């Protein structure tokens, strides 16, 4: 695989980060420590380099209609500057990727894809635009855009402090909306109130050649507010506590959004609502919605100390195989092991006592409603 480089490689090196290969990108796994970084985001703020995420620009007169067809959400209904969590599915209803789409102009959408799926999403968008004869084009701008996230309860103060006086007001941004913001130093950033941590926070899309300046500005304004740089390890533990799926773990081409408990992202339109045309996967997904899935995604919380990890079997107290763990770790916030798992529908009710085969020993775990952690709770 090509070795892809974030424009912040030098910053990570100077901060002493432990780097890891992630979908061909050399990315920071951790700086100070996984737990300290996790807690900083829960209690103050964390700074993330997410420049490995794919930014695919869909533009043209039919951009909205093309995305309506290519994705499972009703993208033409998005307002300007809105953000929307959605998915791209296969014709048989499996998930190609989960995405956040931003409407930057009426005929300009930015599709943010997972690094490992960027090529697949790009290819499918082009194929689907061609198949539908839409007047739209897709450009991959991943290499020229850096994505820097400021996440945590102090994020709003930090991002505000990064702005020029009189600029767009970050506190005025609602959750899942975005704005063009003038940062100190005269840099423009596309700033969205989105994230993947279960906390309030912002994601700043900036030109790659300004990434270092914006990173340094965030570190500077964040220092006195408890912000520390955070790596992919804490990003994973934060998203898991927040009950958010990770592609490759909870989502795949062989599982539908309905199995993952995310059927709400599939918009079939309503008889009394705006008309919703055909989209890739519609027929298969309608059947899955009607029939339900054999296995569903649940949360598990362990009574002991040993954590369930991805791939471990879920069993009943009698030892019958009823599922498989997709993600799991000792939750820094709860102090107990937590996991997400696909289990048979019959044992998926919260309160059900199950066990996970943790390297040969059965550890008791209870089914709970997701998420494990909700901010302000």
């Amino acid at each position: 695989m090509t070795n892809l480089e974030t424009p912040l490689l030098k910053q990570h090196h100077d901060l002493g980060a432990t780097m890891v290969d992630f979908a061909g990108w050399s990315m920071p796994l951790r700086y100070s420590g996984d737990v300290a970084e996790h807690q900083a985001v829960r209690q103050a703020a964390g700074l993330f380099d997410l420049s490995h995420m794919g930014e695919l620009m869909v533009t043209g007169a039919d951009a909205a209609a093309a995305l309506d067809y290519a994705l499972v959400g009703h993208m033409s209904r998005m307002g300007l500057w809105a953000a929307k969590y959605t998915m791209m599915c296969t014709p048989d209803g499996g998930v190609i990727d989960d995405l956040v789409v931003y409407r930057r102009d009426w005929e300009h959408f930015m599709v943010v894809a997972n690094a490992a799926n960027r090529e697949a999403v790009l290819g499918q968008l082009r194929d689907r635009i061609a198949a539908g004869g839409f007047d739209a084009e897709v450009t991959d701008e991943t290499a020229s855009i850096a994505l820097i996230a400021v996440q945590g309860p102090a994020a709003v103060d930090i991002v505000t402090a990064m702005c020029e006086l009189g600029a767009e007001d970050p506190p005025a941004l609602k959750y899942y909306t975005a704005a063009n913001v003038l940062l100190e130093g005269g840099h423009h950033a596309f700033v969205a109130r989105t994230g993947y941590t279960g906390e309030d926070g912002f994601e700043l899309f900036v030109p790659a050649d300004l990434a270092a300046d914006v990173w340094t500005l965030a570190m500077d304004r964040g220092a006195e507010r408890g912000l520390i740089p955070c790596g992919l390890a804490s990003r994973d533990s934060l998203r898991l506590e927040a009950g958010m799926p990770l592609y490759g773990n909870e989502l795949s081409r062989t599982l539908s959004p309905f199995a993952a408990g995310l059927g709400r992202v599939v918009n079939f339109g309503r008889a009394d609502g705006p008309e919703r045309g055909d989209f890739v996967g519609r027929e298969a997904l309608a059947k899955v919605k009607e029939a339900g899935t054999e296995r569903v995604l649940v949360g598990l919380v362990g009574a002991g100390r040993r954590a369930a990890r991805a791939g471990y079997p879920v069993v009943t107290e009698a030892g019958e195989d009823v599922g498989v763990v997709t993600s799991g770790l000792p939750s820094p916030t709860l102090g107990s092991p937590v996991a997400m798992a696909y289990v048979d529908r019959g044992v998926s009710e919260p309160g059900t006592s199950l066990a996970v085969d943790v390297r040969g020993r059965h550890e008791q775990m209870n089914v709970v409603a997701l998420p494990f952690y909700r901010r302000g709770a």
Partner: protein
Amino acid sequence: MPDIPDNLLYSAEHEWVRGDASPESIVTVGITAYAADALGDVVYVEAPSVGDEVKAGDVCGELESTKAVSELYSPVTGVVAEVNGQLESAPDLINSDTYGEGWIFKVELTEAAPDLLDPDAYADVTE
């Protein structure tokens, strides 16, 4: 580069051993900075119990971090003489004081441990 103190011996499975590795002496065992860095913050240690017989190269416990889980190998053969009770409430000592308060267990050797590595040989393993 992770710290590799001069006055210790090492196993290829990334444990350190402090003390005289000859029969009937008691040695102290922990994991190396290299292993601790790879694992990340240790949040749970399952160590062997006092009186357990351990054998060089065999699994005798496990270490869990938020990111991963790793088996704990005994670098020596003998009987567990003491276990670091502090790790129950402060497993992060393994990261913060790897070669000191982060020790995991002590073993009274029943056999010599000729296969342990000196610091230079262990440094080669971590490259």
